[in-house]
């Protein structure tokens, strides 16, 4: 069986064709221009992941929010739950870019980090 997909590893967006057997084992990946495409096809067919980006509330900062993201891609199924946890945060300024705001979110092994700095008011 062939499965067609578009690689989202980078903005080029290669059209991939993944060849699978009946048990869902990947036999081959074609159409990718780099090895990231190969990795993407494999995770997309087995355990799809996405980088999560959102904002968190800041107390006493120059801005009311700080942008945050998952340091690495998260399993797709954990995205909505992670957003709920992030929305419950109230972080005191100052915040530095790269600060870990939630370590190991939902036991995923991935940290939620600040993706900008927010100095004190």
């Amino acid at each position, binding site marked *: 069986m062939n499965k067609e997909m578009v690689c989202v590893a*980078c903005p080029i967006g290669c059209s991939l064709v993944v060849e699978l057997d009946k048990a869902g084992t990947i036999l081959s990946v074609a159409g990718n221009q780099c090895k990231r495409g190969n990795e993407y096809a494999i995770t997309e067919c087995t355990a799809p992941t996405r980088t999560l980006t959102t904002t968190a509330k800041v107390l006493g900062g120059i801005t*009311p929010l700080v942008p945050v993201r998952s340091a690495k891609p998260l399993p797709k199924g954990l995205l909505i739950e992670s957003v709920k946890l992030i929305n419950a945060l109230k972080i005191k300024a100052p915040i530095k*870019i790269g600060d870990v705001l939630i370590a190991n979110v939902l036991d995923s092994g991935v940290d939620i980090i600040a993706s900008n700095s927010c100095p004190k008011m």
Partner: protein
Amino acid sequence: MLNYDLVVVGGGPAGMAAALKAKECGVNSIIILERAETLGGILEQCIHTGFGLHYFNEELSGPEYAYRFIDLVEQNEIEVKTDTMVLGISADNVVTATNNQEGIISIAAKAIVLAMGCRERPRGSLNIAGTRAAGIMTAGTAQKYVNIDGYLPGKKVVILGSGDIGLIMARRMTLEGAEVKMVLELMPYSGGLTRNIVQCLEDYNIPLKLSCTVIDIHGRERLEGVTIAKVDRNRRPIKGTEEYVACDTLLLSVGLIPENELSAAMGIEIDPVTGGPIVGENRETTHKGVFACGNVLHVHDLVDYVTIESQIAGEGAANYILALEEEAIYVTTKGIDGVRYVVPQRININSDKDVKLYFRVGQTYKNAKIFLENNEEIILSRRRPKLAPGEMEDITIKSEVLRELPVNSELIVRVEV
């Protein structure tokens, strides 16, 4: 009157990269003028990732990408005036600007880099019938409300236009708890990057309706709904396909316009297709000593390309200031047969550099071939498995080939299936 060798108008990714490159090339007297409170430009509100994959080989968010350059601007002690709006530039390169500390200031510059970016097309340019209810805004405005100010501008959302900002906001509004009902696209293809269609729409089961548009807007105070319809090949609504969609918010992601009021006012020639200045391979405009780069020159899909282009402009400005420019003998470039535009629009064949031509196609192609021609002779051709209007393409011409081209001849870029 202040004096600087280089004045950079705009402190977004384009302005910062141009200033840094000029500094690296030996220009020491540089100032960046920025209208907003901070450097970084639109990247500050683009909190999604996908920036830097080409330039840094890493996937960064917008603020992270901007931060790397803000940091370098500080380290290199390049002067910056924020909250400062440029009002005009004279024919002899005197920049008039204003801020609330100094009033009106004049800055004489040897060279100027224009890096003002672009802005979104508003509702007014679409001529959609209906009321002027609250809840209709550009996708970028909604992005600022959600990501910077912390307000969700609505709960039931329809997005008109499938540009990247619209797609990104479809996901963003969904994550913040809004219901995004659909994204409508007038054209039979999306103007956004494929990866955004996958990650922002398909992941959240948001339908993308191609060849569809909004034909009426309902609601007195607040938007209550829109009437949508399918369109035919001439983009005219088809009778009988009308459908009412209840919503309280309509986001518009219908294109970006380079912000060239300053450029046009100083008599710089504007390319009617790109909406940006006509430039040479060093990104010099038709006005001596004035360079342009980034979205003010032509709208880019990736900031990485903005950075690379702005470094070319920064180096060009440095060469002009340091009197290292070669005498100019130009050939012009032109896109035909499906190629909508080519940047740069002209090339100094004395420049002794390989030149990358950036271009966009007007429709999608599969297994296409790109030809570069001069005087009906094919100089080179490249195969592309896929071409789309939303994705900028490039083709490189070698300096040794350039040097042999007849003076004032035309370099043609075209597509063939």
